[in-house]
Every structure is written in C-alpha cells, then in structure tokens.
C-alpha cells in the first residue's frame, strides 16, 4: 500500500465524517478499544433492539486510518443483525490477515475493502482493525 492509497480521498473523507460522532442516549453496549502504542482510543456505543443494531455512536480520538475504518464500519453495520455484523467483522479481520479472499465475501465489506492491502504497512494494521475488534468484543458481551 502506497501513501497515496493510504490517504486516498475516500479514506480521508470517512476519517472526517461526523455521522456517528455523538454519544447515544440509551446505548445498551459500550466498548472501548485502544492501541496503547500509538494512542488510538475509540469508544463504540451500540443500541441493539431485537437483535438489530439500531444506532451507533463513535467517540474517542485516533489517527485517520482508525477513524476512517470505524466510520466505514458504522455505516456498514447500521441496521444489520448482530450475527451479520459479527460475520462482517470476521470477514474484515480475515481480509487483513489474508485468510479470507473469496470475492463474494469481500464484496460484503463494500467501502471497507480499501484496507485490503494495509497488511503491507504492518505499523498501521492495528489502526484499521481496532474498531472491528472493538465491535466483536461489544457483540460478545451479553
């Protein structure tokens, strides 16, 4: 992944997105995710009703990559069932670890596919997967 791919328009746009930057009134899941070495620190809030992710709040601070990845994730999982969201998380993490490469699966990630080659930048892998790991933890919490 080259720098101009990393800081592409789409990633920059998502990194600045304010769409989910608000605390939820009544979240029923809250999970914090941190990259202790670089200082990415996100707080994910979810409102889940009848197994469906109704609302998402993304708080905290982080680099452009962690922020963009989190906004893309939020857009993707909004309105999905927790099972679907969990599958998307596995697909995203699998894509980065290069254990998932089936086209049909990758397509489900939509915009988030831009991070497919981030594994060539080992220093930034953690930034891209932070929100997805945080989501998985939030979903596993009952």
């Amino acid at each position: 992944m080259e720098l101009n791919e990393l800081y592409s328009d789409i990633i920059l746009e998502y990194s600045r997105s304010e769409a989910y930057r608000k605390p939820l009134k009544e979240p029923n899941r809250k999970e914090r995710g941190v990259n202790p070495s670089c200082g990415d620190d996100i707080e994910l809030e979810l409102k889940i009703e009848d197994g469906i992710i109704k609302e998402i709040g993304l708080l905290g601070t982080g680099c452009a990559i962690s922020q963009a990845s989190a906004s893309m994730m939020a857009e993707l999982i909004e309105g999905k069932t927790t099972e679907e969201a969990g599958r998307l998380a596995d697909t995203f993490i699998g894509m980065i670890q290069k254990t998932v490469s089936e086209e049909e699966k990758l397509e489900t990630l939509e915009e988030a596919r831009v991070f497919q080659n981030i594994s060539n930048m080992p220093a930034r892998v953690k930034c891209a997967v932070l929100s997805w790991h945080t989501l998985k933890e939030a979903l596993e919490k009952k």
Partner: protein
Amino acid sequence: MKDYRKDFPLLSYYHEKGRGIAYLDNAATTQKPFSVLRAEEEFYTHKNANPHRGAYDLSMAATKVLEDVREKTKRWLNVPKDGEIIFTKNASESLNLVAYSYGMHAISAGDEILLAVSEHHSNLVPWQMVAKAKGAVLSYLYLDEEGRITAEEVKKKITDKTKLVAIAQVSNVTGCISPLEDIIGLAHKRDAVVVVDGTQGAPHLTVDLEKMDADFYAFSGHKMLGPMGIGILYGKKQHLESMPPFLYGGDMIEYVKEQSATFAPLPQKFEAGTQNMGSIAGFGAAIAYLEGVGMKKLQALEKELTGYLLEKLGNIPYVSIVGSSGPENRIGVVPFVIEGVHPHDVVTILNKDSVAIRAGNHCAQPLHAYLKVPATCRASVYLYNTRDDIDRLADSLKGVRRWLGYGA
C-alpha cells in the same frame, strides 16, 4: 569537528544503501557504535565462560569483565562507598526490583507514595501495584504551564506521610530536567526515600550519585549507546542490605539446605542466574565511548542541536511544541503536535522520507491525560545527529498536512 556518525555502522549502512536515515528517536533507543559491538563480540570470542562458576582461567576472565564493568560504572556515576551497582536487564526491571524488594516491605497502609504525573509507566505502574497491595496512597506532582515540576509543587505535596518519592531525572516526553536537589532535600527531611529514574538522564547529563544523594537510581544501557538487555540499579547499601532478594536461584546464595538458604552478599544477592555478559561488556564500551567524547562536549553538542530543533519546529506553520519551547534546563527530547493530523499519521508520512520519530503516548498515559492531548509526536537527538537530520524532519513535516488533504 569529529564526525561521530562514522562510528555508527547502522547510520553508514543506510547511507550507503541510498537515503540515509534521519534517526530522531533516541529517547526510545540509541544506535550502537562499533566499539560496543566489538566488545560484545570480544566477550563471546575470547572470554566466554560462566562468570563466578569456574575456577579455570576462562571463567576468571569472564568474572573480571563483569567486575570491571561494575567498577567502571561506579566511577562513571561517582557511586559513593556506601552504594552498590546491580545489573538487571533494563530500567523497568531495576524499578520493579525496588518496588518489590523495597516498596512491598517499607510501605504500609496510609503511607503516601509521591510521583510525577509525567512518569514513564515503568516508574508508575510498579508503584500502583505497591500502593494497591499495601493500602497506600499515590499522590502526584503536577506540572506548570511549561511542563515543569516546580519546587513549590514539591513542597506542597511532600507530607509527613510521604514514605517514598519516585521521580524521573528527565522526562522522556517533555525533555525537562526535574529539580532533583529540591526533591531529594525535601524528601530526606521527612525521611522519605527517593527512587530516581535516570533512564533519560544518564545518557545526557553528568551524573554524580554521591552529590545527588538519591536512595535508588535506575537506567537502561540501550539508551546510552549500549546494547539492549542491560539495566543498572544503584542503591544505597543500607537499603540493599536489609531488602529481601528479588529473584531467587543460582549465584545469589551462600548455603542452600533442603528447607532453607542464606543469601550471597551484595551485589550477587540481587543478581540471580547467569548475567547478560555480552551486553555487560558492551555497556562497559558504551561508557568508554561517552568518556572519550566527554560529557561536557556531548552536552554542548546536544544543546546546539536542541536549540536548532526547537527553532525549526517553532517556525513550521500548524506545528506546536508541547510544553517548554525554551532550550534551558532540558535535553533534546521535544514533543509536538500538528494541527488536524494525528501523530500516528505524521510518523507514517515522515517514514516515506526516512525520518524516524515516535508517535503515541510514549508510555506516559497519565501525562497525556493531564495535558489533554491524546497523543504527541516526539523528536529526540543524540550526539551523532546533525542539522541536516533536523532540516529533513522540518521539510518532511511541512508536507504532512497536504497528505491529509489540507490546502497547505
């Protein structure tokens, strides 16, 4: 002027491969000169045997390396007669040794442990552990607007309950030098023990432990040209002698029976198991290298580079230095932020120009919370850096915002 860069094979290696690396992350670890690498090799090629364990010449030679480097360290730090030097694997282990073997016995419920909010996690988390286990209270020295610890703050926070003060000689984030004379003077007046984290001090300042009068002083060899894997702990013998061992096993005992053991005298009591002899030999060579340069000369070089670094950073639009931007009473560790760009992105972009600096919270999360910045960039110089390295940093920084889509 002597070209120190020639002594550092890593710098030459990348230079010859094309673009040299502008290595400005010296607060994390420094590069190693040939003499240090040779000393390690010399140990393993000519003197390798287990020190203390054999009566043959080779083992004697290994033991001599160990004890010679200990003596050299004592001379270099002006260790008083009533003090001892113990080898560990790094500053973190040295500080843990003090926390476990001193703190866990000397601290009790209701006592206060005083530390600076700017402490490195290695001089903070072990004290949290002690405080939790013993029911003691951690209290903090906060910083003034310049990021400095003032004598007034120290006066205010040291109380009759203060049993131990844990303080960095120099902050690894702000680069500011702590007022150790005030701190140690005030602490000793109240019979509190002072643990100084010298990790960012020993590589840059002239350290005189007799004059400083700290009870403990800890640092790592790898931040002062030495190899990784060697840490130093100085302690006053009055404490070390009454403390229980930290690690138990071979080399640290006198007599072992089935149900009990007696322990070796200092310093072996705290050096269980086979030591990292290659690193100890290399550490001795690192001291010799610094002595060869001369600490006064080194400080003059660093002062010049630090002034230039502060000036350059101060003149780049959208860059703000965090804490003190003056060259006085500090070392060449400078934290800064770029408006609108997270430090992690800054580092990635600088990397394309082979400029190496650090981003994050530099193992000082409480400090970043106190300063209300989630993360900072940090550039840090050492004797082999040049104005050219700093120019490259500045040039690369000027391009950062454009990558993030800002106009300039």
